[in-house]
């Protein structure tokens, strides 16, 4: 079970800050980040990739987007 970061209702830079906090807090290698706007989706993906994490799945729904990232 990967750790979940729920950043719904938050606008930048909060979703990115929360994602990076989770990455730095020694997450077990997988994270699910939930956002609800496209700007946050793009920013979280960009930030994760710049920290050496990769996106392995994105689920887009009407009211939320789930971004699954893992180390390496």
């Amino acid at each position, binding site marked *: 079970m990967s750790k979940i970061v729920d950043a719904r209702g938050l*606008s930048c*830079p909060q979703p990115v800050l*929360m994602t990076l*906090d989770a990455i730095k807090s020694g997450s077990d290698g997988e994270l699910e980040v939930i956002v*609800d706007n*496209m700007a946050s989706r793009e920013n979280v993906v*960009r930030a994760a990739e*710049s920290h050496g994490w990769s996106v392995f799945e994105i689920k*887009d729904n009407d009211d939320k987007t789930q971004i699954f990232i893992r180390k390496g």
Partner: protein
Amino acid sequence: MAKNFFSTRVGIIFVGAVIGILAAVLQKLGNPGNMGICVACFERDIAGAIGLHRADVVQYIRPEIIGFVLGSLVAAYSFKEFKPRCGSAPIVRFLLGVFAMIGALVFLGCPWRAVLRLAGGDLNAVLGLLGLGFGVWIGVMFLKNGYNLGRSQATHTGAGWMLPLLMLGLLSLMFIYPQVPGQDKSGVLFYSLNGPGAMHAPLLISLVVGLGIGFLAQRSRFCTMGAFRDLILFGQTHLLSGFLSLLIFACVANIVLGQFHPGFTGQPVAHDLHVWNFLGMALAGLAFALAGGCPGRQLFLAGEGDTDASVFVLGMIAGAAFAHNFGLASSPKGLGPHGITAVIVGFAVCLFIGFAMKKKIAA
């Protein structure tokens, strides 16, 4: 999902270039010097046009602002990104808008105009941009310590339409009460007979350029405050590349159009009080950082249904009224009689907000 080209590095550089070139062209077509686009100045002109202040040299409903909101609205609907939302500390955002405007009017321009002033050779803008960076840096310190304005919630579609509808209303007024040469009033609207408010590109050209920039900026998330914030906070240069692109392409366009005049003195709609150019824009930068976007970005967010951003925009328009009614705004002659006090009060309010809004968000 198709990749959004405008959110790539090349995309945002392209958008910065388009804005820079179009701003120079708007100036050539009639907008004030080094003010092809200035979100703060143009919102101030709108406040004057509807009589919220009576500074008779800055009264004109600027179609560019209307276009920014409506262009973003079109883009948001086209790409299914129109999401009406509300409730992230609106009154705080209103006050941040008020003091962002006051700081910008002490400097005489928003971050967009700071770049355009530099691109036109106005070296006083260097102090403004340094101040902007300093103000954003203070905001980043708050962000690192947990500052946030809380979550927004989904709301009615109609709520998301409020600011776009207000913009359509202003546009309607321009057609119902068009400018009459030599008259300072047409129906309910005030029109400047001289000064910056009397200088403008043709209405339809301004509107179309505004619509185009609004569309592109919504797609690219272009933000001049974010350019500094992301660099300081994350070491990211994505938004900064758009910002620098705007500067470079506006500068080249100004040279081509004969609008580049380097120096500190005699610059259009500017003063050379270095300390206050720095501090005015520092206050604005801090307010923008605490509110999560530069004045342009707030208009684009409002266009995609963010009513909290709409409240910030209304705060800026109200701030412009305060700035001119209370003698806070600068002019080419220097500071307004109460400009210094306003900057001090503005910093006090923004620092209070920065320290006070630290509610922990559960992940």
